[in-house]
């Protein structure tokens, strides 16, 4: 499926013109992108380290995971919008950048994994991990921890690829 036309369209758009002409605005958008990453990964790290029983052990995991959700969605919106703005300035260069595509693949994988498997497994964490009271319907503890490690790995790769786009 050839989607280069999307990058060609972006490259010729008014957004691209704006992104290329105003360096000050561009750097502010970059800062928004980094701050959104901090919010997104920070909330995910909190949840995953909790489920690994590394931080806030004994604190009900349901409360922690539930509280992170809103901020994760806000951060994702910020990251995607600022990311589109940043991409418009170098659209054609990104179309052929392998780190960019790896980042997008990781981002998609991370979002799907977080919304499906991670969400389902964390809500069924056994008492020894979740501390949410007796659970009639729980998965094995090692599965919860494996999901946590997987999530951390995916999002680490997204952030690292993002950094390497800048180097490549």
């Amino acid at each position: 499926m050839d989607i280069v036309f999307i990058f060609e369209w972006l490259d010729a758009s008014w957004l691209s013109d704006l992104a290329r002409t105003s360096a000050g605005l561009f750097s502010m958008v970059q800062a928004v992108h980094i701050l959104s990453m901090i919010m997104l990964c920070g909330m995910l790290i909190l949840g995953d380290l909790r489920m690994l029983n590394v931080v806030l052990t004994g604190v009900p995991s349901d409360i922690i995971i539930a509280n992170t959700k809103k901020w994760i969605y806000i951060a994702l919106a910020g990251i995607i919008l600022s990311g589109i703005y940043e991409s418009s300035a170098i659209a054609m260069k990104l179309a052929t950048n392998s780190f960019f595509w790896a980042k997008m693949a990781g981002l998609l994988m991370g979002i799907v994994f977080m919304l499906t498997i991670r969400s389902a497994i964390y809500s069924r964490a056994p008492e020894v991990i979740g501390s949410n009271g007796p659970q009639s319907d729980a998965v094995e503890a090692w599965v919860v921890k494996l999901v946590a490690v997987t999530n951390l790995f995916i999002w680490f790769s997204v952030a690292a690829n993002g950094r390497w786009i800048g180097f490549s």
Partner: protein
Amino acid sequence: MLNELLFKFATWLDGFQSSTNLHEALYAYGWVEGTHVLTLTLFLGMLLVIDLRLLGVAFKELPASTLVERLDKPMMIGFIVMLISGALLFYAIPVRSTQSIWFRIKVVFIIAAGINALLIRNMTRSSDMSWDNDPVPPKRIRVGAALSLGLWVLVVASGRNMAYDWWDCHKEMPHFMYWAAGCVNELAAFE
């Protein structure tokens, strides 16, 4: 005088072979910078959770002290990694960093954030923490938390702007900017 002192210190650091090696290394500088940026998610991520609780907008079911005390360790681990990687980045390019107006602004904001953090800590320790279980803490705590978030946002933005050469010493700038950025050689040319 301070500018001359800082410039002398930076030039002395720049003289070390290891400084040049780190700057010119194929991977090392990239790894250090990558570590510095990625560790932000741990350090500021944990700080964000604490500040959101102290603002009374998230994690309201949990006592504030639980988050403040128990997220302190991962936050400080992140902070130490940030300090070390930041110091290495400075060491790799000491002269440009010292003469970067954005680096200077960043350091001022970091110091301000540190003072703010100490003030919040003193406030919480001297109070009876009767508000610990309240969903929304007292106003002075919320102000401190808002300041904390604001200052760290400015630290990140300043750090990001360091990559741009808008106000580098080799650029044409007003005299005041040469002084603010510590462009010692350019200031001497003025005299």
